[in-house]
């Protein structure tokens, strides 16, 4: 591990995995690893971010990501404000910028934003003076999810080199998929995408991943199987004809999992649709399911992200005169 409080990130925002260097990623994962240990001890509270303010701005409802950021910030001693921002009927770009201006006037140090439009976090980052963490922008990126997935894998497998990771399901609408493809490929894993053609974006091979429409073939020899959530409204005939057909051909059950390598790990960013993309018999089996562990890693990884960003902040706060 590098110097205890040396800089880890080159930028004051975490907008995506695309911009991250291997050193930055490794630095974050190392730091997160130390927080995993701390979180498991009785003394979980630290004063690292004492006096700092973190604002959670979620334009899309998300219990788990928002709580994870809140808990991470609180464990580091920061003040947390959860802004409830419903979707407004007025032009979204305008609303977002108006909100940004309002927020900026409150002088927070870190802004965590989730928005249904791709590029929202980046737009905000250009308009506010604080650090911005992208907690999901449309179908673009969700960097902390990919980082926590990487942390989970690294703790179980040691390294990424040569690992076969099969990401299965709704790749088209998934920011989790995009961030993971980019991040895991950077780390040396061999990424495969498994989905029906209707759930694969155009020219998805540009990411350098192997594409499979047959799940048996896609899972053959996989070290990690990462399932994605399929939104209910997408399985009524537009992208997929029905939930039962989806489960039959793309739902992870024990039989399909048998194609993967012995000792395979099963992951899911949650929340799960049981009986649609994943069978309970797989999701709940601690022999290969690390789904709960991902949640635990999420808090530690987000603490590391906040810590790393805070290292770049002026002592008196980002917005101090």
């Amino acid at each position, binding site marked *: 591990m590098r110097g205890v409080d040396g800089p880890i990130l080159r930028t004051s925002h975490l907008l995506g995995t695309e911009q991250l260097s291997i050193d930055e990623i490794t630095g974050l994962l190392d730091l997160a690893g130390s927080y995993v240990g701390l979180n498991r001890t009785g003394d979980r509270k630290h004063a690292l971010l004492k006096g700092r303010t973190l604002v959670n701005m979620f334009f899309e409802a998300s219990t788990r990501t928002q709580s994870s950021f809140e808990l991470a910030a609180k464990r580091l001693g920061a003040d947390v404000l959860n802004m409830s921002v419903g979707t407004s009927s007025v032009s979204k770009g305008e609303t977002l910028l108006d909100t940004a201006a309002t927020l900026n006037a409150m002088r927070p140090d870190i802004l965590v934003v989730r928005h249904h439009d791709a590029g929202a976090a980046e737009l905000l980052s250009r308009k506010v003076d604080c650090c911005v963490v992208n907690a999901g922008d449309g179908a673009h990126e969700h960097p902390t999810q990919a980082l926590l997935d990487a942390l989970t894998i690294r703790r179980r497998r040691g390294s990424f080199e040569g690992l076969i990771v099969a990401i299965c399901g709704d790749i088209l609408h998934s920011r989790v998929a995009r961030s993971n493809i980019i991040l895991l490929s950077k780390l040396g894993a061999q990424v495969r995408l498994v989905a029906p*053609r209707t759930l694969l974006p155009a020219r998805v091979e540009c990411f350098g991943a192997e594409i499979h429409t047959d799940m048996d073939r896609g899972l053959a020899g996989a070290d990690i199987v990462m399932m994605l959530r399929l939104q209910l409204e997408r399985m*009524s005939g537009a992208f*997929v004809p029905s939930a039962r057909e989806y489960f039959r051909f793309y739902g992870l059950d024990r039989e399909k999992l048998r194609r993967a390598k012995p000792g395979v790990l099963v992951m899911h960013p949650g929340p799960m649709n049981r009986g649609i993309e994943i069978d309970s018999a797989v999701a709940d089996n601690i022999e290969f399911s690390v789904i709960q562990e991902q949640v635990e890693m999420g808090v530690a990884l987000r603490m590391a992200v906040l810590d790393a960003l805070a290292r770049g902040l002026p002592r008196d706060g980002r917005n101090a005169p």
Partner: protein
Amino acid sequence: MRRLAFTNARLLDAASSLDTPGALLVEDGRIREFGPQLFHDGIPDDADTIDCNGWILAPGLIDMRVFTGEPGSEHRETLESASRAAAAGGITTMVVMPNTEPVIDEPSLVDFIKRRAAATASVRVLPMAALTRRLAGESMTEIGLLTEAGAVAFTDGDRTITNTRVMRLALAYASTFGALVVGHAEDPELSEGAAMNEGEFATRLGLPSAPPAAETIIVERDIRLVELTGARYHFGQISTRAALEAVVAAKSRGLPITCGVSACHLALNELDVGSYLTFRKVKPPLRSEADREAMVEGVAAGEIDVIVSSHDPQAADTKRQTFAHAAFGAIGLETLLPVTLQLFHNEKAGLLHLLATLTSTPARILGLESGRLARGLPADLVLFDPDEPFAVDSAALHSRARNTPFEGQTFQGRVHQTYVDGIRVFDHAAHR
């Protein structure tokens, strides 16, 4: 062991370009042996012998486009009555459309068709399933599960899916499973209310009409979508020169596209509507003579892959109407072969070439092993005299419906016997 010896036959097989005098031995329902030398040392004692009289013995025909009324309007046609008509036409495999009541859009309904066919039909019945639920053109069907249930292809039958986005996603999804999509090219808005082909004759008759472009527009759209999705696509039937040119261009670009033409559109043109003959009101409408000629040339050039009956039985009450209000559709199972043979007798195309459009090519498109003569395959066979003349008499047809567009017309080419799994399902001698 049951053996059947066909002697004194002219063996014709498009897949292997075989055209030779010879004999064929069937053992337990399968082709055991065939060729010019067979039985030179004598016919096996225990075999039943069929003297073929020098007639053509060929693989049974595969008709890729058959509408029946089962389930839902059995008064028009059942699988059983359609299969009798098919057998009489030398057809041993009929592919039935999902345009029934209810629509075949559920695995259990595919299973229903298969079970009803097994229980009642004398020829093989392969169901196509709907591409969109209730043929509404809105949401795709369970292509994976329907394929597992036995659907051979996916189609909305004689309906065109107008929503391009729905069509794109359905094609993309179908390509996931390598499923075949069969499209109908007739822009519904452009053809709304139309009873025949737009042109001078429709104007003289004062009938509402739709332009041939109603077909071309959809053909060209779907070709673009195939380009985008890579789906295997078959135009169930085309009827215009412009559509054919588009298909030919698409094929030359290597797209996985094939097309069919109905026997009606090879034999008849818009003038045959004559004095408002509703039995000649079909979908798509009979076209100009130039378009009909283009269809014949397309078959001869191998640009049109298959010839289909587009058998569409209609009850008398729906045809005894003014032309504008009469139902679309013509029966055709029993006239498919003789109409096709017209092209041979008119010296437009050779016998083997034409036979391919009715046997080996549809088998290839559908992924069937049948449609050819080969050792070990089920003995689905047709025995016909290509020259014998006969006049179409609707009263003598086997279909439950009588709406033939060829009443009284004379053709050459008589089916004498038809076999499925080595079992005789039609014998002309028994019907004389």
